[in-house]
Structure formats: structure tokens, C-alpha cells
């Protein structure tokens, strides 16, 4: 899917999945809240993850993150308190952009997008070097303009499906995605949970594949090699998204690179 001249943003996203697949892996997609643990520390944390990442999600912190569990909530609160605004988040992307070819995706809620104005937001994001957007509280049928604007500014769009999604919803959501499809592993918010979670993932990924040829990545609750393997191998997903576990590691002062290596090991298809 690489384009002749410069790869397009959406092309860059698809190429990243293809490269991981060609290496026999599900793509590792770390999530990190912009400006976490603080403005000075964020670039180093991001680089540590980018070294291992196939794609990367950067969270634009929001005051009322309905889809997030306590770990990402607190990281966002802390980042906002320390002045991580929309513009500062996009500035971080701008600073990372020349250092990496890894696709950079902004994950945020719809209100910050509407506040700046959807078109202005897309323009600023494209300018900063963002490749795609993930908006967990925007079901695609709620806003037709967003999709047209994303197309116009060349940004990839990812919407979410969940274990509760009916085939009709999966159809609507997958049709609206241009970057990849994000399958939420459990009914719930982001963050690790105890017990037999992830059991519903294989069926969900299979359902998605009936409706789309786009890559299908799975997130929510992946925290280590074992849970990554469940997603990458048992469910045969194309990508594994990990957020809360990395944030918790930063908070605890653990070795982020080692954790990312470990999880990346779990993404290997044969293993």
C-alpha cells in the first residue's frame, strides 16, 4: 500500500501493519498521555516506546475521559495541571516527527476537537505531522463532517467496535474507518483487570474481518506478554494496543523499555 512518492499518512499506517505482519508479529501500538509524567519527561518516555513501536498513540488529555479507567484518568489530570494543552500536545508531535517514521496517532475525546473547531483541529494536526485520529466517544454515525475533513487533510480515522457490537454496528464502524479498526477487548474502560478477560476477543476480531480488510488492532486490558499473546496469537489480531500498563510503569519508575520488549515478545505470531 505504499505510495510511489512520499507515503501518505494513511499509507504509512497500513505499511506499518504490513511490516509487522511480514516479520510474523502483530503490530505493537503503545499509548502514552502527552505531557506525562511531565512536560520535560515526556519526550524521553515517548522515544523509549517509539524504539519498539510499530505505531504510536499519543493521548491528548481531556478533563472528562469517559472511556478511561483510573490510570489514564490520573495521567491526563496530571498532564492538564502541568499545562499540556491541545497546542502543546501537537507541538510534542511536531518535535517527535523528524525523529521517527512510526505512524503517530492522536487519541482524544470529541470535545477538544469541537472546541478548536473540527477543521482547524485537522489542519493543526496535519501540520504537526499527525497520521491519524482515534476518538473513542464519537460513534462514526454521529458526525459526517469529521470524516470528510479527515479525508481532506489526509488523516487516517479509527473508530471502535466492542464485544457488545452487533453485526450491523460493526458494518457501520468498519466502513467509516480508514486507518485500522480498533476492537475493544472487554466491556469496560481502559486499564488492566483481573480474571478471565479477553475471552471475547477472538470472536470480535473474526466478526470484524467479515466486514473489512483493514487491519484490526485490539486494546484495553493488555498489560504483559501473556495478555499480548492472547490477543496476537489466540485472536490473531493485527495489532496490540497497550496504554495503562506503560503509564503505570512510568509512574512506578520501572524499566519501560524492558516492559515494551516483553510485550512485543508476546506479539510474535508463532509464539
Amino acid at each position, binding site marked *: 500500500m505504499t505510495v510511489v512518492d512520499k507515503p501518505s499518512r494513511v499509507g504509512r499506517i497500513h505499511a506499518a501493519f504490513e511490516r509487522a505482519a511480514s516479520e510474523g508479529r502483530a503490530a505493537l501500538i503503545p499509548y502514552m498521555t502527552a505531557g506525562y509524567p511531565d512536560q520535560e519527561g515526556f519526550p524521553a518516555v515517548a522515544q523509549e516506546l517509539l524504539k519498539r513501536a510499530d505505531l504510536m498513540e499519543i493521548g491528548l488529555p481531556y478533563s472528562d475521559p469517559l472511556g478511561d479507567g483510573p490510570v489514564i484518568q490520573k495521567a491526563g489530570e496530571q498532564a492538564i495541571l502541568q499545562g499540556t494543552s491541545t497546542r502543546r500536545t501537537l507541538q510534542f508531535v511536531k518535535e517527535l516527527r523528524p525523529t521517527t517514521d512510526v505512524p503517530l496517532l492522536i487519541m482524544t475525546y470529541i470535545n477538544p476537537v*469541537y472546541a478548536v473547531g473540527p477543521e482547524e483541529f485537522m489542519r493543526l494536526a496535519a501540520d504537526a505531522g499527525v497520521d491519524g485520529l482515534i476518538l473513542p466517544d464519537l460513534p462514526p454515525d454521529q458526525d459526517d463532517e469529521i470524516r470528510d475533513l479527515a479525508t481532506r487533510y489526509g488523516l487516517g480515522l479509527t473508530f471502535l467496535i466492542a464485544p457488545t457490537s452487533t453485526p450491523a454496528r460493526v458494518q457501520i464502524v468498519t466502513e467509516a474507518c480508514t486507518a485500522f479498526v480498533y476492537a475493544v477487548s472487554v466491556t469496560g*474502560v481502559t486499564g488492566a483487570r483481573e480474571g478471565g478477560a479477553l475471552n471475547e476477543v477472538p470472536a470480535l476480531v473474526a466478526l470484524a474481518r467479515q466486514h473489512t480488510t483493514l487491519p484490526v488492532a485490539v486494546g484495553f486490558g493488555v498489560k504483559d506478554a501473556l495478555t499480548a499473546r492472547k490477543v496476537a496469537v489466540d485472536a490473531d489480531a493485527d495489532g496490540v494496543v497497550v496504554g495503562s500498563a506503560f503509564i503505570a510503569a512510568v509512574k512506578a519508575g520501572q524499566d519501560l523499555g524492558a516492559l515494551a520488549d516483553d510485550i512485543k515478545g508476546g506479539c510474535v505470531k508463532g509464539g
Partner: protein
Amino acid sequence: MTNAAHFISEFPLPDARGRFGRFGGRYVPETLIPALDELQAAYTAARNDPEFLAELDTLLREFVGRPSGLYLAENLTRRAGGAKIYLKREDLNHTGAHKINNCLGQALLAKRMGKKRIIAETGAGQHGVATATACALLGLDCVVYMGAEDIRRQSLNVFRMRLLGAEICEVTSGTSTLKDATNEAIRDWVTNVRSTFYILGSVVGPHPYPAMVRDFQSVIGEEVKVQMQALEGRSAPDAIVACVGGGSNAIGIFAPFAYLPPEQRPRLIGTEAAGEGVHTGRHAASVAGGKVGVLHGSMMYLMSDPEGQIIPAHSISAGLDYPGIGPEHCYYSTEGMAEYVPVTDAEALDALQLLAREEGIIPALETAHAIHYAMILAAELGTGKTVVVNLSGRGDKDVAEVARLLKGIESLGGVEA
């Protein structure tokens, strides 16, 4: 009074996509979309089912005590020196506020849908108490999310909920008030969506909540029509005043009049909490001081900074301490169907005392915001006109907080905070 019997009012909006103009919609995680579809289908079936309507009607009459009175407040009228002031006595409902009208409707629906676990958010605790009450009555498990700050200032209601068998989850995220309790309730619902029914307490949230809560609350306005006809010989007063947090008591009394042709429509006035004053930034007046955005699943006027971060609301009354306002109110506002005016903490506190002394009714602090403006409006409209105030709740829950706020005021002599 027959009007509550066996029907739920129909209104022209929302449209098929759950919109009131541009407002409303369903901005929620995809996990919830099938649950909202299921809820909408179940609600549509229930509201057309004579058995459901009869059961609700019986509960509203026998358990809640409906219809609530429409009482001519003569002392207040004399004091204002203008239009006649009628009080729609929702404070006399079982549990002390309008909230029970909606809770019984939703709890009956939950039972019909076979959901045994109920969750709710609460600010003042009135919706929490009403939900806990409905759950006790119908044998449902009840979990109520409440901000830590509200637990402090509405401690009487916390104890009532516990007595009724509800579990209280204290919320300490964000501002520890209603907004955050609502976030937490939505997160619970995303997690337990298959087993759980979320009884939302106001005309906010994703479609179909704003419409469904309005429908259950519109019994208030439908009764006013019949009562006004009997008392004044015409079904519509000249003006209706109600306080607006999320906006459920206001929509309940407005909606049956709002879609009348403009020349027949009474003036509809919602009082928003202006806190310490809209200019101070410490307020909860979403129309007066807000901008259009998305909160709790719905497009509405809300208080946010230029980059879309929600600004903490402030109000003396926990039930109005909310940075948004229901989508139908936003539509009324932009279409000129209703007006929204700010009323400050201090004005509400004075109005609470005024109503207590003039009429022997201690209103909730929320309701006191409406009383304040009704006095101004009655004077402005002049004699020969009528104003109906939705007396949304009684003030028992606020007595300790009011005593604390008035500490040192001699006239209360001896009351300890």
C-alpha cells in the same frame, strides 16, 4: 384528575437521530450503542403498552401522591405586587422532589427489561433517594454514584439512601461533584452494560435519555394545564419559571407548553445557577456563560475553556452544580422558545428564607433559584397575569447546609451548623 392516567405525552422532537436541532445525539463509547438501541426499543414498546402505563399511573397516584397541588401563594403574590404566583407542589411528592416521577418510570422499564442491577448518579441526593426508593419498592439492586463534596453537603440524603438499601459509591475524581459522579456512573455502565440499567436523573446523556426523562417528567406540565383550566379558566399561565440543573423539572413543566404556537405559549423561563456571579467564572450557568460542546454523551451548552476542557461548575446547590444543560433546553434557547436567566447563590439563599417566612414552605436550594426570579417576573408582568413556579423540591436536605451558610445571622438565632 385523569391526565396522568394511561398516557405519556408525545412531542415533535427529538428527530430520528436523537437530535433537538444540532443538540443531543449519542457521543458515547461504541460499547454502549447497542444498549441505547435496546433501551430505546424497550421504552418505545413500554410507552405504548396500556399495562405499563396503568402500572406507572397507579404508582404515581398511590405511591407518589400525584397529582401534586397547584397552590396560589397569596402572601408571595402580595409581596411581589403583580401577577398571581402559583406554586406547583412537586415538593409534596413522596421523597420530596420531582425526581421520583422519572425514577419510577425508568425502574419499571428496567424491570420489564429484566435488568436487576440499577446504577444512578446524584448531586443533591434527591435523584439518588428517588432511585433507591424505586429500587426498594421493585426489588432491584441499587448503586448510587455521588461526589465526595456532595456527600458532605447533602449528608441527610446519603443516610436516607443507605436506609433504603442503596450502596453509595463516593467519587473523588475531578471536582467531586455531579459531573464526576455522572462520569463514574457511565464508566460503570460501560463495564456492566449487559446486566445493568442506568437510571439517569436529568434530561441529559445520550439519546434516548433526554427524551425519555422529559416524557416521564411531563406529567408535571400536563397536570398544570388541567389545574389552570379549573382555577383560571384557561390551560396556560402567562409565564412558567423553573430552576435548571440538567433541566428535568424545567422540561417537565415546559415541554407540554413549549411546542404551542408562539401566541399561545406562555413565557418559559429557566433559572440557571449563577453561583458567585457569571462574571466571576464561579457559576453553573451553561447558557449564559457557556459554549456548544459535548458532555456526557450529548451536544449541549456547557462550560469549557477555549481548548474544550470542562470547567468546574459552582453553585450553592448541589443539584444545579453541573457544567451543562440538557439538549432540549439548548434548542429552546436558540429557537427563542424559552429564556434562561442566571440567579446567584446569595439571591437563592434569600429566596429560600422568603418562601419559608411568607408561605411556610422551605424549598430546596435548587428551587429557591426559581422563586427569586418569579418574584421579579410577577412584579414585571403586573396584576391580572399568572406565573406558575415549579416548586421542584423541599428543603429538608439543605437545612444543615443553610444553617452553616447563615451562621451568624441573628434571625436564625440558636441554630448551630
